[in-house]
């Protein structure tokens, strides 16, 4: 067993965990934060994307022990303090950027990382950045629109769904 201490969505947590415990298991099974989804468990789909020390990473391909001392942010920490949806989440709702919602936590976390480094991305930059996030429902156009809109840009030029 390994002792891990980290901050998750602003709260300090400390637990004894198995050496081979993945971050997805740590968040979902130990902390009951089930917003971080597991679509593939093989690093392909991006449903499990979280932020570790401000960087977007795939939680299914990282051990809990690797996050020792880190600041971790998950989808549960994204809403505004009053519980309302944040700008990116609201844009996903407004632009129909989700259908079943399975990919959405990873999409929102990935979009948040992109917009922090690149506040006004082009459509191509958005599509490139979503390389590691798979959506089986929307066909992506509305996700791209939502991210464009969340960055305060005009979305009328983006292909219809």
């Amino acid at each position, binding site marked *: 067993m390994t002792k891990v201490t980290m901050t998750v969505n602003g709260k300090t947590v400390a637990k004894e965990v198995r050496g*081979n415990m993945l971050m997805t298991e740590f968040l979902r099974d130990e902390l009951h934060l089930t917003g971080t989804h597991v679509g593939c468990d093989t690093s392909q789909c991006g449903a499990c994307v979280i932020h570790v020390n401000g960087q977007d990473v795939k939680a299914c391909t990282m051990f809990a022990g690797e996050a020792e001392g880190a600041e971790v942010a998950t989808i549960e920490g994204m809403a505004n303090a009053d519980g309302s949806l944040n700008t990116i989440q609201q844009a996903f709702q407004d632009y129909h950027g989700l259908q079943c919602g399975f990919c959405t936590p990873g999409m929102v976390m990935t979009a948040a990382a992109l917009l922090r480094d690149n506040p006004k991305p082009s459509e191509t930059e958005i599509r490139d950045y979503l390389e590691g996030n798979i959506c089986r429902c929307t066909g992506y156009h509305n996700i791209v629109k939502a991210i464009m809109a969340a960055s305060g840009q005009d979305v009328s030029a983006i292909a219809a769904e």
Partner: protein
Amino acid sequence: MYSFDFERPTTLDDAVKALGQDEAQALGGGQTLIPSLKQRLAMPSKLVSLAAIEELKGVTAEGGVLTVGGGTTHGTVAAEASAYPALAALASNIGDPAVRNRGTVGGSLANNDPAACYPAAALASGATIVTNTREIAADDYFQGMFTTALDEGEIITAVKFPIPEKAAYIKFEQPASRFALVGVFVAKYSDGVKVAVTGASEEGVFRWTEAEEKLSADFSAGAVEGLSLPAEGMMSDLHGSGAYRAHLIGVLTKRAVAAAG
């Protein structure tokens, strides 16, 4: 996954000590190793994460050499290796953003996947692989797919890339994995041109010396026109036959030369 212990040393000395134990294995960014562990392809008694060792991280350019710490992520190389643009571009095209935020240069070179990008850059640049015990020339380092000159428990602390006059890396992506179906790195130095090919040979990354000779005499895409490699010894799988890969090497070499300008 099999069960194992997990350790996260903060100094190189402690990591070397931890790796001295039986069946201990180093963990870089884990973007290859963790999937392999899930498939039970490896059974370490202990994983020693190198991610907390600050002395293994960073990118510096000095005296015509770009030095990249072994624990530096692809994302950091993409952002900070501006002194060697072809290398920064290579790093920015590995996997996806989340993978680039974890995967490391040292991890990629230690694994020596036959379709990985960094081995081509190291070989074409005549890089030096620096470990906790010695310095290894790239030409001596790569010894066939998934095989390197590293000893048990040896850690890549840095990679020194001499900065070329011109260089470019072109990869033909396998569309699902984004690994190189074939990738060619061309680098021109004052004393000659080096061409390294990844993704193609059953022996892993290799230098295409015939192309190097032609390009050293005349650095233009036309110089390698008509030059080709045999299909024998090239990997064949559902993504492409050996003959197709051999053909791609010629095409990508020309594109790389053109892109290097």
